[in-house]
């Protein structure tokens, strides 16, 4: 975009108060205003108006793009599915106004706890999704634990009352060698979220916790256990 500033725009005939120059300046200002408005509107189409986080549409687009990037760069891509615990109760007990305030509150807390490259979205209702580019499963699980504790430790105060909120987290990773779709990626993370719900809420679940998959490296404790009988008896 052309970056000439006003100083450059002057009347070629040196007339002060030239009407043509004045018109150009006015048009430039209008253009700036329109550009800002355009940015605002396009942000709106990918933002959730209540929380100011990205919306589902942006999530879909970003996830596709980041998975493509992972296939190109080889860096793992992590995904966290989050659901607020017992949120229906908040709405029932305190009303929808407070419910909405709670959703905004959660968005504010978590936005401060992530990197600028991370993409935090409101998936819908009381569900959130965090996309973590160039992040291993281990790192993502740690990030989820940070989000979990930051929410659990900072209650929302509404009308003098402390409302303690917690959330459950499901974490999954996409590696360059994986071939599943964006849809499947979301489903997998959602499966771990369900596991977190089933196992008591306010917790993080991923492949690392499930016996059906996970790290295959032989751990030091397994090595010790394999050879324990060979140690000389004391």
């Amino acid at each position, binding site marked *: 975009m052309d970056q000439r500033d006003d100083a450059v725009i002057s009347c070629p005939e040196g007339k002060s108060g030239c009407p043509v120059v004045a018109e150009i300046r006015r048009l430039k200002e209008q253009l700036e205003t329109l550009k800002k408005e355009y940015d605002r509107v396009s942000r709106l189409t990918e933002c959730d108006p209540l929380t100011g986080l990205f919306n589902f549409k942006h999530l879909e687009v970003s996830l596709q793009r980041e998975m493509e990037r992972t296939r190109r760069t080889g860096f793992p891509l992590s995904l966290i599915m989050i659901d607020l615990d017992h949120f229906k109760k908040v709405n029932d007990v305190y009303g929808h106004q407070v419910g909405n305030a709670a959703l905004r509150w959660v968005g504010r807390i978590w936005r401060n706890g992530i990197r600028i490259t991370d993409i935090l979205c409101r998936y819908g209702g009381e569900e959130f999704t965090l996309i973590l580019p160039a992040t291993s499963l281990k790192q993502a699980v740690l990030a989820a634990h940070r989000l979990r504790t930051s929410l659990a430790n900072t209650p929302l105060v509404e009308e003098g009352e402390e409302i303690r909120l917690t959330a459950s987290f499901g974490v999954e990773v996409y590696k360059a060698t994986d071939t599943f779709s964006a849809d499947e990626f979301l489903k997998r993370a959602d499966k771990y979220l369900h596991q977190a719900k089933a196992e008591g809420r306010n917790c993080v679940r991923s492949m690392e916790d499930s*016996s*059906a*998959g996970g*790290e*295959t490296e*032989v751990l030091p404790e*397994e090595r010790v256990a394999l050879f324990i009988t060979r140690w000389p008896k004391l």
Partner: protein
Amino acid sequence: MAKESKTPVILSLSSGKGGVGKTSLTVNLACALAQKGSQVLVVDGDMALANVDVLLRFTAHKTIRDVLERGEDPMKAVIFVEPNLGVLPASSGVPEMVDLGPAEHVLLGNILSSIVGHFDYVLLDTAAGIGSSVLWLNTFATHNGVVVTSDPTSITDAYALIKILSREYGRKRFFLILNSVATPQEGQQTFDAIARVAEQFLGIQPQYLGCVPRDNVVLKAVQEQLPFVKGAPRSKAAEAVVELAERIRRFKRE
């Protein structure tokens, strides 16, 4: 050759570590099973460094590679060293056969599926390591045999293999063969250690197929290119292998 389609026991023999006796045991187990009158196929799954042909003294004219790459009839590649003992040979010294890609594994699956119905027992000898082809052959098998010695590196590698297969491929039933043991007690103890750790950390219960003693006839058999169950049927190793074959004959078909 029987025309009807059978449901064979497909037993893979893997170990993680190399040189622990997979190929020797595969070949001799195959002979022992064939001696009982079963139709037996050995698939040389060490597809880049084949040596089943060496141990059985035959020359392969067509290999798995020809079948994969040129679409040859797989049954024509099978060499019958006995009327009821066939071998599907592999190529040797072909680096691109070390680890086949997903598409080639699908093809290999189709090829093997088209011929296993002729046999009662299909033994899959595999390469050392935990490469994609080793893992794939283990997923193709109905029964996963793991060959292990009392050597700590062999124990660790066998456990690593079991861990990957159970965690990533959902395999749960493993049959351990303790090879080159000094005494049966040594075999049982090593098995117990592995089984205990597998139960504790992986939640699975490997089964003990048995042990084979350290025996010079095994080495001699390699040098003479004659399986010891034939060349030295009264040796301790041969008796042990015949006993293993008996247990394999009691496997349920599925």
